[in-house]
């Protein structure tokens, strides 16, 4: 039995979710490009974590770090699996600004649309590498561990993804200053 139904284990899981799930949800959003799919993906990953919570070692001093690595791996593998099954034809939603008339939010919505358009054109493996390396700020080794691939594959996928993004019509202007 490893599920944290009650007691200290349950409290530790609650603490972990409270502390880290916003960051994890943001990663899931970049993988899926959709708020609801991101929540679905995150919950699926957390279910896997919840069912193995005792084995992950919630009582250790590095419990959150270990659990987060586990969740990130579950996010990535679930994403690549689900992508084939259910999420074909993903299109950027082009969300409206969260507050009408807010110039910053309008600009951010434009960035969001452009970045999601470019991300949607990437093969799922490249997209996952990109999110783990450049958003979650994982090392190449940590990214390789999360995806179950070699460091060499992470390097080549990241390079290809970066090249594709820079040549994406949606992001040409956005990379202009850094090119």
């Amino acid at each position, binding site marked *: *039995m490893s*599920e944290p*139904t*009650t007691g200290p284990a349950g409290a530790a*899981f*609650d603490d972990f*979710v*409270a502390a880290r*799930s*916003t960051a994890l*949800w*943001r*990663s899931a*959003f*970049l993988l899926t490009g959709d*708020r609801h799919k*991101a*929540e679905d993906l*995150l*919950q699926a990953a*957390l*279910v896997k974590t*919840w*069912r193995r919570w005792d084995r992950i070692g919630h009582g250790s001093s590095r419990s959150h770090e270990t659990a987060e690595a586990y969740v990130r*791996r579950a996010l990535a593998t679930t994403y690549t*699996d689900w992508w*084939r*099954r259910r999420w*074909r034809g993903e299109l950027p939603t082009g969300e409206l600004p969260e507050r009408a008339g807010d110039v910053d939010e309008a600009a*951010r919505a434009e*960035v*969001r649309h452009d*970045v*999601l358009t470019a991300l949607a*054109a*990437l*093969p*799922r493996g490249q997209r996952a590498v*990109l*999110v783990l390396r*450049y*958003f979650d*700020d994982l090392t190449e080794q940590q990214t*390789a561990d999360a995806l*179950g*691939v*070699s*460091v*060499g*594959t992470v390097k*080549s*996928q990241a390079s290809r993804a*970066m090249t*594709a993004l820079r040549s*994406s019509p949606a992001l040409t202007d*956005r*990379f202009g*200053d*850094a*090119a």
Partner: protein
Amino acid sequence: MTEHDDSRDERLKELLDQTAPDRPDVAPDARVTAVADRARAVRRRQGIAVAAAVLAVVGAGVAVPLALSGGDDSSQQDVADDPAPEVAEPPACPAEPIDVTNGLAVKDLPDGAVSARLCPAAFRTMQGDVDFTLPTEPVTDGVDELLARIRDTREMPLPAECASIMVAPMPWALVVSYPDGASRTVGSTMTTCATVDVGGRQVSVEDVIASVEDAVGESPTTTPVAECPRPGAESGTLVAEPDTFTGDLADLDVTSGAVCYGVDPQGTAEYAETRGFLEGVDLGAVVDDVVAGTTAARSRAFDCIDTGPTRLLVLVGDRGRLTLTDDACSGEFAYAGGFWVPGPAAQAALVGALGGRVGG
């Protein structure tokens, strides 16, 4: 890393940070509740399955209340304490690629496995730079049938072409997992022109991989994926499978593409791989080019010796499969819709999918 690269990386980080909304719609405590409910629902589904099995054997019993329990925490705790085994999720591929430097033989592959999946592998002389393009989805339905097919694979000599071509390696391993946690692994450094030891018999790696790919493709939850036909047993030539889509390519809504290369004895072109897959922008570039560039008549004459199809482009969409054939050593593809000479971007995608040209 250069300063230029650092700047580019930082810019990408900024863009990603701006793209991800600051916060989700669901509060953490609500998420914890949802996660717990979903996990319990999984257990209840399994409990129902266990109860059904019990009923089938001994008739009505006390399992029904257990299986259908739910609601308050105490009853869910009962379900959670159910001694039934946990839902058997197929093990993920190992974090570190499996070493197949010397090949991995397997003495036998007995029935009763819960999953089988292809995983990236490595070997000491070429580790690192090989993209792993085989499907890694686990086979969980029909595992025994898959293992039987692998066990029954006939020993056949490798095609004659294998003696004269250079084939790039792609190390792989097939991990077969059993309910007690044990696993058996077979693997090779190559996906073509090589054999692997299964039960003391040297069988073609292509046959083993094709069997797994077929099993993955037969999964009811897997989107159809373009695949290359198996080479003819004797000649090794490419033989396209019949089209299952006959309409306008623009209506196919292509979701997957495969490029297949049959070794040309005349050596007009050689590629690092005998098959590859098209995804994302590469697939889009190829499909767009086919749609825009198809002509009613051939545009290229060919003056080389026709040795049969050298390349196939297999396109799969929700409505079926369509194959284009580079059948006359001219680089022009023919298909039901007409003829097509790849433009520069499409040609680059095709060549890239095959790992690049290595000669010819």
